[in-house]
């Protein structure tokens, strides 16, 4: 059995959730798993996902080819695997788009093979 204590980040409570588990066929054996310290179900779900498939939303900026001193913010539309975060950040480095841009515009499809798109998160006319 493995044991990990995580700080739950779902709400400002920041519960210290301890998950004790064993892996079976690449998945958690839910029968033997115990989760303690959480005050709601989200804490449990978070702990399970953090030990099986931790994901993060990556945010950053891309350049605007037709604006001086202005970049535009972007994010991954859905969270991506945590170990892909540095790759995704690098993928944004040299991207430039042309204004106007709007929230939700897709900049990169399926970024780094994560299945998630990079989308614009601000409106620049």
């Amino acid at each position, binding site marked *: 059995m493995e044991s990990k204590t*995580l*700080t*739950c*980040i*779902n*709400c*400002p*409570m*920041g*519960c210290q959730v301890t998950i004790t588990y064993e892996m079976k066929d690449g998945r958690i054996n839910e029968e033997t798993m115990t989760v303690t310290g959480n*005050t709601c179900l989200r804490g449990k779900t978070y702990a399970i996902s953090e030990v099986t498939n931790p994901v*993060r*939303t*990556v*945010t*950053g*900026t891309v*350049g605007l080819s037709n604006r001086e*001193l*202005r*970049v535009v*913010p972007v*994010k991954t539309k859905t969270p991506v695997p*945590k170990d892909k*975060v*540095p790759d995704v*950040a690098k993928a944004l*480095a040299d991207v430039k788009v042309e204004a106007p841009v709007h*929230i939700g515009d897709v900049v990169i499809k399926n970024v780094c093979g994560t299945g998630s798109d990079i989308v614009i*998160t*601000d*409106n620049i006319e």
Partner: protein
Amino acid sequence: MKRKAVIIGGGPAGLAAAVSLKDNGIEDVLILERGSSLGGILTQCIHNGFGLHTFKEELTGPEYAARFIEMAKERNVEALLNTMVVDISHDKVITCMSKDKGIFTIEAESVILAMGCRERPRGALNTPGYRPAGIYSAGTAQRFVNIEGKMPGKEVVILGSGDIGLIMARRMTLEGAKVKAVAEIMPYSGGLKRNIVQCLDDFGIPLKLSTTVVDIKGKDRVESVTLAKVDDKMTPIPGTEEVIPCDTLLLSCGLLPENELSDKMGVKLSPVTGGPIVDESLNTNIPGVFACGNVLHVHDLVDYVSEEATLAGKFAAEYIKEGERPINGPEFKIETGKGVRYTVPVTVHPDRAPELTTVRFRVGNVYKDPEICVYMGDKCVLRRKKQICAPGEMEQVIIKKADLKNLKDGEKIVVCLENVL
């Protein structure tokens, strides 16, 4: 120019107040914004985590702002951008300055203060050393990186573990900088848990508690900073110095409500929060002048800013429709008991109060398993257990009008923590 409702500041507080005023039947609503766009500081907070309470989804700062900008547009809220308010008089005459309109004045029936806050500068910390380039407040660095796309440095030390500092630790890392340490003078972080986890732990950035900067070297550009442990009186302990070579020092050492205008117009300020002293209607000591958001007290989540500003808008609308109501019946002060640093509001009028009044507060230390209690006179009207209370997170209790009505002359309302050392 005469206007019904004038809101100073077009950030999240100002926008939510404007929307609320419209929704509560006030047609004439004007936002005065000094920046070139609405949204305030949210436009540079490009990280996600906003809106879980308000929209039940995780948005980035600009997306959260855009939702409110959209709502304001739908309701035809008027906004004057690039307009600096230079003065407000006690009788609500607002003097503005802009490129297009020059100097002009507005006579407002009601004013909503929503100017937000600013960062504590290095001077306030009195950090010794040189004064080279490369020392930025975290928010200034955030603007350079997120708006202008410029990097303020490559090797970074951050002083203060406030949320902006934590967020910038991750931002700078993702943009290719090396964040060598985050130093926090207190024995705990002032930032949100999720930010410590996702901005520092995820990237292996050390958080050094009870640690401060005791020297800055470099005549032209920062060359190193010296960190040292501090004792429980926050005095650096000799012999614990550690020199960290770096080219950048970011400061994230707290936010201060920006109340220069409020002060000028005669609004009474709290020495604890630096924000106006308000009653349950978020009215300041000047009838018809309301305050909400970070100008009132520094919030942890923007969702609560929006919630508070919505209320301010509602009360301002009532004020405009009904005029100044005489205060019938007594006024009670909410006092802070053990562990509680301040409350907002500070006073309540049981006769005027809505059915439920949210009292927000912050604690002064980290408390494990406290009970949050509200006393009215001798009677404990509310007792709630919590796992943890920390200064970085805002707390709230909701008090009922029915309980307020039972208060007798001379009795006090006290918000405090119990079951704590």
